[in-house]
């Protein structure tokens, strides 16, 4: 499943890049991220609660930041396993200047397996899209607010 999206963030690119590679900011932007612990350079163990409304599952997994090219782009790699199945995804995040603002673009490729894929396939894409939107909204608020 491929997801893409663009957001305009009201902050300069350097500031946006610093924030989007900062594990504290990432953690507080991911709704349902209970824990994120550094295990190696740019690698973190994460405890996540993902889903919407009543359909939520707990996942334990890894978050990794790769191919960091400040202040332009990097790749976020995530994988998690839980009772409802597994989620694996990579997202390439690109930043471009737009005056005083920054244009953020992401292209993600997400694989979902196990029970959640077998039963929830009808809703997964819409839910994933909503979660990505929520993430970037929260992220933008944090960067613009600080």
């Amino acid at each position: 499943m491929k997801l893409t999206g663009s957001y305009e963030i009201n902050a300069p690119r350097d500031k946006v890049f610093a924030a989007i590679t900062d594990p504290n900011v990432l953690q507080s932007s991911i709704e349902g991220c209970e824990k994120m612990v550094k295990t190696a350079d740019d690698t973190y163990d994460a405890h996540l609660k993902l889903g919407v409304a009543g359909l939520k599952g707990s996942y334990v997994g890894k978050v990794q930041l790769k191919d960091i090219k400040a202040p332009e782009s990097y790749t976020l790699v995530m994988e998690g396993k839980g009772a409802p199945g597994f989620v694996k995804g990579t997202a390439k995040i690109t930043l471009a200047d737009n005056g005083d603002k920054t244009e953020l673009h992401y292209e993600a490729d997400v694989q979902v397996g196990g029970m959640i894929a077998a039963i929830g396939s009808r809703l997964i894409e819409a839910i994933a899209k909503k979660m990505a939107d929520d993430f970037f909204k929260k992220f933008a608020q944090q960067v613009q607010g600080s």
Partner: protein
Amino acid sequence: MIPVAFEYFRPQTINEAVGLLSQKEDVKILAGGHSLVPAMKFRLAQPKTIIDISRIADLSYIRETNSQIHIGAMTTHHLLESSDLLRQKCPLLSETAANIGDVQVRNRGSIGGSLAHADPAADWPAAILALEAELLISGPNNQRTIKATEFFVDIMQTALQPNEILTEIRVPVTSKSVAYVKFAQKASGFAIAGVASWIDKSKNSVRVGITGIAAKPYRATAVEQALEGRPLSADAIAQAARKAVQGADPLNDMHASSAFRAHLAEVNTRRSLELANSR
């Protein structure tokens, strides 16, 4: 197929249920159970607390009051489908109910449960939006009513607060000029494109509610405006139907791409309006 352990409550009154909602953590309300129970059995939902509202007296009724029809939230799809009152005075609800799932689902599933679950492919939202229904909600301190257009917030998300229960749905008495046309996903019967329309010929006005297309059901206001106050010729309807997804963001999934969904929305909007207009 065995759910995670949960605490179970079966209150006798709405007040008791609302009280439990405020006290307990991670709660789901069990109505007819035809969305929640499967999700729990597959462990896609793992609530800690279940509040079963099926024994609360007087949540299942269909009554006519002052040119409105009031429907209790626990009224089953089957009762709505087979109600003579609705067939005479709000046939869009009878027609929609007949389109939901299968006999077993209709015998157990409830209108309030379906609306509160807010599955983006559920059938009821299309009719509820087209009829400009009002929803009555009970909370810890008060009751409030909310318009259908304000009820659906996002995918599986409604304007209900965690400590509130949807108790009643209010719809107007209408003529027979209504229709629900859907393209269903074959295995589940869920709507890929479901379009409900209500034509008020005395006012030359049209209402269209669409489900299955976007993350949340919506009123096709661009279609309505294009037809407002105009004679409903086949041409005018076809032109207006082209605006079926204006302002919406059609979903993309294994059953239908967003382009196919947009196409289905247009075709079913046209068919639904033509059918309603012929009645």
